């Protein structure tokens, strides 16, 4: 336990708070980095996911692509892109955005697909236009799974951003690698605790948000497991929606 005391002391040491390499600066860097990557991925993945979810087309392609992406080790992608574009922030941004796309994409279309077909069928038969169906039925009802996807993506990006410090001077991961280099276990452990804390805080925020976006009247937070009267083909396994590799 002595090790943890040292780590906490390291965190609390005022000397580690100052300047661009201090804990607050690194934390903000880590957060901004995460946010930007998730945002870029969302801008790409959400419209495409909605389109796939609404039309039911292109689904198998999306599943295959995102399934394949999930098997790719993040460290491999990071180092490879870093060799291509050089050391700096470019490589991690590209790698993190690519990694964040599959869970958000899957959340977007799975959210639409989890809606009872009869609800959409009846919305169409009472005379809703396609855009009204998307806007007033599919998006509100699909929101919980979309948020779940963004949550997965965010946690994955927070984790991978730590790893990104291996190829770029960015984020809380720097403490881990700096400590590793100088064999300063207090710094490694202290940095690790900070990343874990950050991840858990984000997890907590998302838990609350996920509860809030469940439309009133939809009792269960989860989509019905059995959709006996599903009009569309039953979706196959969808690895993309899982939290990916860290």
């Amino acid at each position, binding site marked *: 336990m002595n090790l943890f005391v040292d780590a906490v002391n390291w965190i609390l040491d005022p000397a580690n708070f100052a300047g661009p390499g201090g804990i607050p600066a690194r934390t903000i860097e880590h957060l901004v980095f995460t946010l930007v990557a998730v945002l870029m991925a969302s801008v790409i993945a959400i419209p495409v996911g909605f389109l796939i979810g609404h039309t039911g087309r292109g689904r198998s392609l999306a599943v295959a692509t995102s399934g394949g992406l*999930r098997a*790719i080790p993040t460290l*491999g992608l990071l180092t490879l892109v870093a060799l291509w574009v050089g050391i700096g922030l470019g490589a991690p941004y590209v790698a993190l955005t690519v990694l964040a796309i599959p869970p958000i994409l899957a959340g977007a279309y799975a959210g639409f697909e989890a809606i009872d077909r009869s609800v959409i069928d009846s919305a169409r038969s009472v005379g809703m236009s396609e855009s009204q169906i998307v806007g007033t039925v599919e998006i509100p009802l699909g929101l919980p799974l979309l948020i779940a996807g963004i949550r997965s993506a965010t946690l994955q990006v927070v*984790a991978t951003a730590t790893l990104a410090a291996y190829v770029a001077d960015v984020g809380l991961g720097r403490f881990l690698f700096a400590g590793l280099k100088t064999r300063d276990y207090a710094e490694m452990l202290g940095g690790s605790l900070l990343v874990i804390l950050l991840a858990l805080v984000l997890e907590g925020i998302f838990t609350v948000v996920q509860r809030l976006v469940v439309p009133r009247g939809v009792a269960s937070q989860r989509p019905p497991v059995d959709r006996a009267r599903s009009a569309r083909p039953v979706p196959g396994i969808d690895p993309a929606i*899982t939290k*990916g*590799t*860290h």
Partner: protein
Amino acid sequence: MTWFWSNLDLLWDRTLDHLILSVPPILLSFLIAVPLGWLANRYRAGRGVILTASGLLYAIPSLPLFFVIPAIVGTSLRSPLNLVIALTIYGVALMVRVVADGLASVDKDVRQSAVAVGYSGWSIFWQVELPLAGPVLLAGLRVVAVSTVSLATVGAVIGAQSLGSLFTDGFQRGIQAEIIAGIVLTVALALLLDGALVLLGRVLLPWTRLAATDRRAVRVARIAEASA
């Protein structure tokens, strides 16, 4: 390609290292998750605690966990045991929910009729519930296998040898081919283990070749993962 052919020995060694790191966590997480998932499904109170804990564990990034485990367990930072423990934690965190949902997805009528024809408590679990939840468990285990293989590479940055070492080494020495070889081998290994599990499923769960059961399983597993 030249690099690839002249370093076959290295690649083979790293692949073996990688297998040693990733296969035990896959097996262990299944063995640990089944009783935990059973508890979570059986007792309401247990469900909240176990599922919340597994959710939080899953949220912890891998690299920091590799640093924290030695401080708790006393293993050395570079020891493979360290990685095996961390990867098992992730596997369990994911599998517990799948097991709980898989058991919950077993048709109530089937369970009732098993009781009615005289199965005892334990034999219902072993002979009815577990086999019927089998397809769901298999789907979950496949996810665990693929992500464990991928995650194991991260250990390379703290010096634990695996296919990930090809990334760190290739990056430091500027050998693109080495990194690409590492990615290809990691993906191939993941697909290989995934395929092995599919085959295992065909042997152990022959009735799942009927599409309906399989689809239900896949759906349950997918939803379980989505809300993990």
